[in-house]
């Protein structure tokens, strides 16, 4: 929090820090990410190992693994997702409250892994937004912890109180206005690149 301090003209006592509300909110959110474990396969075992006592994930704020999407911030998709499971995954993602983030853990969730078959979705990022990818088959607990630390840095750098960073449409419109490009509304609502 100290690096976000704004210099002010008045003299402040030693126990007062001035910062932005966005940074304060991001600091609170990043240090209390409660995971929603969407463990379908082998990566789920490594996820459980990361939450266990040796590689303790609770040190980083993931105090409880809530199995209800209504009580979680962070969805960790650990394991391969088959086409029968994908609508379930999307529904649980939609049931999570904002602000929410998604980690795609392991090779199967990121790209389909070694299972390039008729029933395995080749990467969940084809159908839902992913913030952090953790490669590995399975990734060791230390790699998952590093992924969560990197996600915490991302939340701190980009986070806002109102969640403006999640509004892709508004962000694209601001960028195109900045670059002085024409804004064309496509049927899906997103501004597609030409």
């Amino acid at each position, binding site marked *: 929090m100290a690096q976000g301090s704004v210099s002010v003209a008045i003299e402040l006592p030693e126990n007062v820090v001035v910062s932005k509300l966005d940074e304060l909110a991001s600091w609170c959110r990043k240090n209390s990410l409660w995971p929603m474990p969407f463990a379908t396969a082998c990566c789920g075992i490594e996820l459980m190992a990361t939450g266990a006592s040796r590689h303790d994930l609770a040190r980083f704020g993931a105090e409880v693994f809530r199995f209800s999407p209504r009580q979680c911030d962070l969805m960790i998709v650990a394991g391969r997702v088959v*086409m*029968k499971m*994908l*609508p379930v995954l*999307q529904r649980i*993602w*939609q049931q999570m409250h904002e602000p929410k983030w998604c980690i795609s853990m392991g090779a199967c969730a990121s790209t389909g892994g070694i299972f*390039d*078959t*008729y*029933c*395995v*979705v*080749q990467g969940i990022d*084809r*159908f*839902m*937004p992913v913030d952090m990818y953790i490669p590995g088959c399975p990734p060791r607990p230390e790699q998952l912890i590093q992924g969560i630390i990197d996600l915490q840095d991302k939340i701190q750098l980009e986070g806002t109180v109102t969640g403006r960073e*999640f*509004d*892709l*449409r*508004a962000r694209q419109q601001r960028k195109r206005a900045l670059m002085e490009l024409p804004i064309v509304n496509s049927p899906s*609502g*997103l501004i597609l690149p030409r």
Partner: protein
Amino acid sequence: MVVRSEVIAALESRFGNVTISEFRGHSRATVEAAEFIDMMTTLKETLGFDMLVDVTCVDYLNYRDARNRFGLVYLVANTTSAERLTVRVMLDDPDPTVASLVPLWEGANWLEREVWDMFGIRFDGHPDMRRILMPDEFTAHPLRKDYPLQGRGERHNFPVLTRSEG
């Protein structure tokens, strides 16, 4: 465990079209679809093969020297004498159908549903003939040899959730 010679003799005397062979300690009986249900009833009730271990299928579409397209495989076991027998039924392409074993063994319910889902072989008399592994609206039979490994695009036919909507 090789089946005893009394069992082989009983099968060969009762059914005309059965062929029994043995390879490295495993016995196999190939039977016609018409005599299939009688043979399985005999095996279960008279000869003591009380356990149906598995039901599966082989697609011989591009196999050299193949005479029929589908070869159903039934594995039965005798829990008292530890004998195991493989029963083969060869079926052909337009509408492969065979009698269902659900009246004899309840466990055949899900095993035959899996063979229907993966190969498209219909089982007459099955109480609940629907897909078990693939989603209900799936149209193909994936383990047939003419179905590609990566599928025909069904795996990616879903709506996309984005940050601004989802």
